[in-house]
């Protein structure tokens, strides 16, 4: 797209009001070619909130990385294997540390840029999104938002370069939707702590170098969070959960912690405030999953349109049958509806990032991220279901480009807060604290 000359006068005037976009205009004719639907999103965001040239270059890298990941994701998906190339390609394009601040070796992507990046990667599939979302939103950003200066200097540059890959260990066999009931414990010993327990359904679990672990003090019962080195003695992968319904290219494991030692400087945030870390990480993560789901809907739309234009039945392209058009129209509407929800949540999160002490902003960002994740995951699943229908019998094969979205998006309605938990959260934020149903 030519950002300098081919815009309508209204768009240019709107854009001129935004400092970031002005920077882009001053940058001169800036030709970028990206995947078509994603380019539309980038253009939309650039014309409303402004995108700077360095932000566009992150998105160009995301576009190239997504393109490069297509073949390996497809091959790994149909053979139901974890895809190690996801991390390699993201490192190659310097994207693994995209939201990490520049002073810690990242690219300083603000939330809307992070969301657009995940949107593009989501077109390839939720396997890619799961690795990135956990590493960046639940891992790196938790350290960036809650870590001490020493922790940030120690972990973030390596998380940006790929030397460190994060996992996030909140869920346990008996604590899922109610994580505050977790049973993993820690006790003080010498210059640190010993952690004992098990973590269940952990993405990146067997491939991560570090895990954010939440555990309960065996003395006070309070929950704290820790940065745990996975090569520490006592840390072991109990089961790699390979019998999943989908999400084959993402690693999901059950982890056992047998008196794993954590030095005291690796407690994340202050003692007893672990759930604050857990919930704020999930706020980031939910915008990430919502963004990835936008990419899924974009790919469903693209694939369904192509099939509808090429497949002929009853003497004409199936896209000329009105009931097929209904599926296409619904997928397109799902996508447009969710774009606004996800971008709005991202913008609210940015506002909160600039005013971290404002609890009202925090609550608004929390509410919007829950709504964005709930709607985008539900409508991405609906879109994948419709895209499969447009494909007919071949759609039911995992060789089709849409079956993986159908299988993978189902999990987006479960992890990082189920549909039900999201609804309860949204309702209680509407009705007030006295109405919190899960109390």
């Amino acid at each position, binding site marked *: 797209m030519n950002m300098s000359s081919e815009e309508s006068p209204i768009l240019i005037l709107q854009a001129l009001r935004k400092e970031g976009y002005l920077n882009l205009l001053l940058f001169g004719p800036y030709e970028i070619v990206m995947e078509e639907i994603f380019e539309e999103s980038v253009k939309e965001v650039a014309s409303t909130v402004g995108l700077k040239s360095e932000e566009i270059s992150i998105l160009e890298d995301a576009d190239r990385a997504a393109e490069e990941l297509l073949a390996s994701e497809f091959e790994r998906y*149909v053979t139901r294997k974890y895809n190690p190339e996801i991390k390699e390609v993201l490192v190659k394009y310097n994207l693994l540390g995209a939201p990490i601040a520049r002073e810690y070796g990242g690219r300083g992507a603000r939330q809307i840029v992070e969301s657009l990046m995940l949107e593009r990667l989501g077109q390839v599939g939720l396997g890619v999104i799961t690795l990135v979302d956990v590493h960046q939103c639940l891992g790196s950003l938790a350290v960036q938002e809650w870590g001490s200066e020493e922790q940030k200097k120690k972990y973030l540059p390596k998380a940006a370069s790929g030397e460190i890959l994060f996992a996030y260990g909140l869920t346990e066999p008996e604590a899922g939707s109610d994580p505050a009931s977790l049973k993993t414990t820690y006790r003080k010993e010498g210059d640190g702590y010993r952690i004992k327990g098990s973590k269940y359904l952990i993405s990146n679990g067997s491939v991560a170098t570090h895990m954010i672990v939440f555990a309960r003090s065996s003395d006070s019962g309070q929950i704290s969070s820790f940065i745990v080195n996975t090569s520490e003695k006592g840390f072991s992968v109990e089961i790699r959960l390979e019998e999943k319904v989908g999400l084959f290219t993402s690693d999901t494991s059950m982890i056992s912690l047998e008196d794993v030692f954590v030095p005291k400087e690796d407690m994340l945030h202050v003692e007893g405030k672990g759930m604050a870390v857990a919930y704020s990480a999930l706020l980031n993560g939910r915008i990430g999953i919502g963004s990835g789901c936008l990419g899924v809907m974009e790919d469903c739309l693209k694939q369904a349109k192509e099939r509808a234009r090429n497949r002929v039945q009853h003497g004409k392209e199936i896209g000329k049958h009105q009931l097929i058009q209904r599926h296409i129209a619904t997928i397109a509407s799902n996508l447009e509806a969710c774009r606004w929800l996800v971008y709005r949540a991202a913008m609210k999160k940015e506002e909160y990032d600039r005013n971290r002490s404002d609890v009202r902003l925090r609550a608004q960002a929390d509410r919007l991220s829950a709504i964005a994740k709930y709607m985008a995951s539900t409508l991405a699943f609906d879109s994948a279901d419709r895209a499969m229908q447009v494909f007919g019998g*071949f759609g039911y094969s995992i*060789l089709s480009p849409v079956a993986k979205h159908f299988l993978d998006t189902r999990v987006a309605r479960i992890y990082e807060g189920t549909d039900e938990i999201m609804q309860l959260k949204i309702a209680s934020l509407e009705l007030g604290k006295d109405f919190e149903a899960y109390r």
Partner: protein
Amino acid sequence: MQLSLEGSKTINLPRERVFDLLTDTNFIASSLPDAEEVNVVDKETIDARLKVRIALVSASMKVRIKLGERERPNFGTLYVEGSGSGSNVKIASRFELLNGSTTTMKWSANVEITGVMAGLGSTILKSFADKKVTEIFDSITKAMEKTG
């Protein structure tokens, strides 16, 4: 399903030599990758059975390759038509040879796929086709350079 592919390749041989090899059906027949059967019909035609594999999808395709319009040593065209395992493919390709200390070959291909394989969609097919075509040109270039 239509795909448009293009690329370029540098070959350490004079332009005329590259042109002669790329329009020699015996040479093309000997450097076809994954060929199960090859039969040079005449100076312009080859019949072959090729194994095409994309991840778990494997198709055995009967193809006819035909040389088209050409001008020594500037350009040439090649047409491929094939079918098998419920899929059909038609390729119209063209190469241009540019002079320099080595020869630069610029090529483009319009591919039309119908049947089962088309179901994979152009996004996936294009990423595999790009990979496969690079492999094919690498192996043809090696074979050409070996002929000296």
